[in-house]
Each structure stands twice: as C-alpha cells, then as structure tokens.
C-alpha cells in the first residue's frame, strides 16, 4: 500500500486521492505561442512541483509542494497563495 503523507489530514492511502496535476497560472495576456506552450507542454523535470490533489472522502482540494525525485511532500500550500483573478 502506498501512503500519501498529507500535512493536513495525516497519512492516508494514496488510493483515496486523485492527482490533478501541476498548479499552473494561465498566461492571461499572452500571444498564441505562449498559450500553445501553456496548453500542450508540461514541466516534467524532477524537482519541486506544486500539485493539486483531491481527497475524495472529504471532498477537499489540497495544493502540495512535492519533491518528484524523492516522492516526498515538502509542504502544504495555502490556497490563497495560488489563487488568481480571471479578467472580466
């Protein structure tokens, strides 16, 4: 059994979580090339990555900073840190 060490709810089986990918901010006022890069490309190099995780039993979303090389959660990120405004 693989365990995900969530800093908020503790050690839980990873099967309770959905991995939702890297936390990314859309390039609001960018040209088409930047938008294409945003839509189609992902940062795959090992290292620190901010990721969305969804815990199904509680229905809660978490943002974690994870070392993808060691597969260790480094810290929990407050959602306020990653929020952004959508232009009206």
């Amino acid at each position, binding site marked *: *059994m693989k365990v995900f060490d969530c800093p908020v*709810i503790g050690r839980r*089986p990873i099967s*309770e979580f959905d991995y939702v990918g890297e936390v990314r901010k859309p390039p609001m006022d960018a040209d088409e090339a930047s938008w294409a890069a945003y839509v189609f490309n992902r940062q795959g190099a090992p290292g620190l990555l901010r990721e969305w995780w969804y815990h*199904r*039993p509680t229905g809660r979303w978490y943002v974690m900073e994870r070392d993808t090389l060691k597969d260790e959660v480094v810290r929990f990120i407050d959602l306020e840190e990653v929020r952004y405004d959508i232009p009206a």
Partner: protein
Amino acid sequence: MSTLRLNETERASYLLTGPASRAALAAAGLPVPEQLLTAEERPGALVARTGRDEYMAMLKAGHPAPQDEWCFRRYDCVFELAGRGWVELMTHLCQYDFRQLQPGDWLMTSAAGVSCWLYHEIESGNLLIGADPGYRHYLIETFSAVLDDLSATRNPTGGAS
C-alpha cells in the same frame, strides 16, 4: 464478550453550508464543532465540521432539524458496528490504521472502496459508518461477508472427528 454485529440505524442527515450554518445549528440546540474534520455528540445528535462553514448533522428520530435556507437533507445509509473486534473487521476493509481512532474521533475515508464518514461513539464505543445510499446493498453484503469470515475463523467447525 459481546458479539460483533452490524446494524443499520435510522439517522436523519443534513448538510448545512454558508455563513448562517453555525447560527442554524445553535438555534436547533445542536453542538458546533470548532475544529475542521472533528465531530461533537449530544444525546440523539451528531454534528461534524466538514468545511470552513460547512457542517453535517446526523439526528435520531424526534430531534428537531436545523432550519436554514442553506440546510439540505441528505439520505446517507448509516450503519453501526457494535461489539468488540470492529477494529479487526475494519482492517479487512480499509487501509486506515484504526488503532489511532479514539472515542469521539471523526474520520472521512474509504471503506470497501466506498467514500464513507466514520465516527467512534464515546459512550457505546460503537463505530458509526455513513455512506451514499446507492452503496447500501453493496456495503451490507461486503461487511456481512467479512463478519462471517471472521466468525468462521474464530469458531472453526473443523472437518475431522
């Protein structure tokens, strides 16, 4: 030693959300847990805090329901695991380490692959399990099968005379 058994119990479940949820709980004479993902019991009522301003209330028959525009009825199926040895049973169905779950603790996890809420009752020591009613039959069958397996292991009839 009491026998381990699974009972289905009647609890009217409600989800309260929005800034008035605390006041609605208090007005109905229900406890208001302070910490996130914790629960408080009162006679005939169990309330858990599941979000910043979101609460779940499970009430026995006769307890007044909270009144609020943002109070929604839920129809969870609720089971009660009574008797000694429910930790052993749950280890067959859930990957959580139930030795950590103390009386009064609230837990939201997966049991038998189904998202459930669980509460360790303080006075009785029983484990309450609530889930989406669509999984009712599946959960009854699965829990009963594991109960039978455990019972057979404890009381082997054997084949030799």
